[in-house]
């Protein structure tokens, strides 16, 4: 039996188990919800009906697009600011030493504490929400990029110097590529933090997007719809994090041990 074949069989096995577990969970959920009442825990069938309705009338799609647009704007701004800053901090020792204390302090502060200030400065809608996503995603990216540059293998730097590399070569040809896996980790953490940011913003500011739906449904006890919104959010988070992971494997295969295409 070939290796690939046995692997395929095993994968099929894993998916079968997952499906069985899923079915059991749904059944248990149905039983519990029927005994507790739908105001406490909606039934799976009720949630499914609500999902069909919300998708059909476009409510979910529209909310998702609003949330994603805000998220994407803030996230891309964070990336555009954080990567150059992390690289500067790593490339110029003095810049790094001057900034890293403050960055770590800001990173440790709960973002929610800034919301009143951001509302005063940027209002209650798109702009302010973008700022929240930006400051949520910025820190993990800048910190990981900086760490990546600092953690470059000193032996590789020395080898390159031996081959005649100057400081500029060392930065561009060694430090920069060596920091890519760290940077990707930062991007992945940034996605998670950014999603937390957008939902938080939609909770506390104008109730739009998926966060807005969750607040609305939650406060009006529309339990089935609330479950749909939360599930969609979970799926989006998973898909985004997984995509970054895929990109990571593609451009930094040496860190994951996968074969480069």
């Amino acid at each position, binding site marked *: 039996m070939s290796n690939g074949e046995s692997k395929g069989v095993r994968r099929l096995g894993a998916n079968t188990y997952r499906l069985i577990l899923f079915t059991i969970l749904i059944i248990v959920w149905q039983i519990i919800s029927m005994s507790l009442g739908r105001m406490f825990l909606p039934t799976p069938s009720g949630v499914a009906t609500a999902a069909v309705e919300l998708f059909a009338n476009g409510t979910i799609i529209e909310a998702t697009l609003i949330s994603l647009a805000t998220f994407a704007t803030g996230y891309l701004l964070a990336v555009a600011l954080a990567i150059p800053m992390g690289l500067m901090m790593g490339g110029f020792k003095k810049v790094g030493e001057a900034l890293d204390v403050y960055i770590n302090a800001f990173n440790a502060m709960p973002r929610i504490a800034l919301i009143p200030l951001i509302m005063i400065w940027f209002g209650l809608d798109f702009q302010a929400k973008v700022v929240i996503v930006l400051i949520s995603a910025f820190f993990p990216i800048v910190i990981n990029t900086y760490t990546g540059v600092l953690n470059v*293998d000193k*032996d*590789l730097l*020395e*080898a*390159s*110097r*031996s*081959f*005649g*590399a100057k400081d500029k*070569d060392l930065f561009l*040809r*060694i430090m920069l*590529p*060596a920091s*890519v896996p760290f940077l990707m980790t930062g991007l992945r953490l940034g996605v998670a933090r950014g999603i937390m940011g957008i939902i938080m913003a939609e909770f506390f500011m104008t109730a739009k997007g998926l966060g807005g739906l969750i607040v609305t449904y939650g406060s009006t006890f529309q339990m089935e719809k609330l479950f749909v919104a939360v599930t969609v959010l979970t799926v989006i988070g998973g898909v985004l994090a997984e995509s970054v992971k895929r990109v990571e494997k593609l451009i*930094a*295969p*040496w*860190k994951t*041990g996968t*074969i*480069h295409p």
Partner: protein
Amino acid sequence: MGSDNLLYKVEVDSVNKSFYRRDGDKFKLLKIVEDLSFTVSDKEFVVIVGPSGCGKTTLLRLIDGLIQPDAGRISINGRSPSAPGPDKGVVFQSFRLLPWKNVLENIAFPLAIQGLHKEKRMARALEYAKLVGLTGFEHSYPHELSGGMQQRVGLARALAMDPEILLMDEPFASLDAQIREIMQLELLKIWSQKKTTVIFVTHSLDEAVLLADRIVLLGPRPSTVKEVIDISLPRPRWTYDVKSHPDYISIRAYLWRRIKEMVATPESIPEMYTEPQIQPLIKESRPTTSQPTTD
């Protein structure tokens, strides 16, 4: 014969080097190399033998110009001090390949630093990949290669620079015995074609006698030259069974005796010597602790 006005290709003249070493919360000055002198002629194959931790790598870094001596002088082609550059190609003890580059790109890396045009440097890389027996692996990444293959890349990378001097730091130490012997003979063949000057560091007496024109024997740290031994075994050495040649056997036995004497005279080890285990015995093979850490 090289240029006539040059007596030596490499001249190491009374070199001293110490490092600060943390000892608890204090820093202690640790003498690594003391008053070390030897010379290497053009196109000569010199092997440096010395116990573990005696400063062999430090010596190669000094010769390469990566670090400067505290006292004394190192001249390359009569010029001093030595500065790192493409005139010296180093094969490192722990391969030091770029994990994000494939075999060809790794071999071409020093050429890229020197600004050689992409087409030219890739052609050159291909040529040297072939020379060291990496055909079929040109597009593999270091983490996909065995240790032996990785060190071939390290060797090809140094050779492709077309250096005047090849500095090799226990390049085969982490390979298993068979691959190691193959690589040794291949190196001899390549050297006989290219005729560069080679300074080769090793723990292994067999490797030293097999390869060398001359052996420079170092003592325990702080290392000084204990003896320089000419090896006049006929070349080329891959055409006959060197290891059963009577000269080989007697030289190896002599070296072995000298090293045992060195170990038996601990006054050569100063009080500074604070390492937990003293292991100046020449080891035939080393544990693979010098494997690259690519993950």
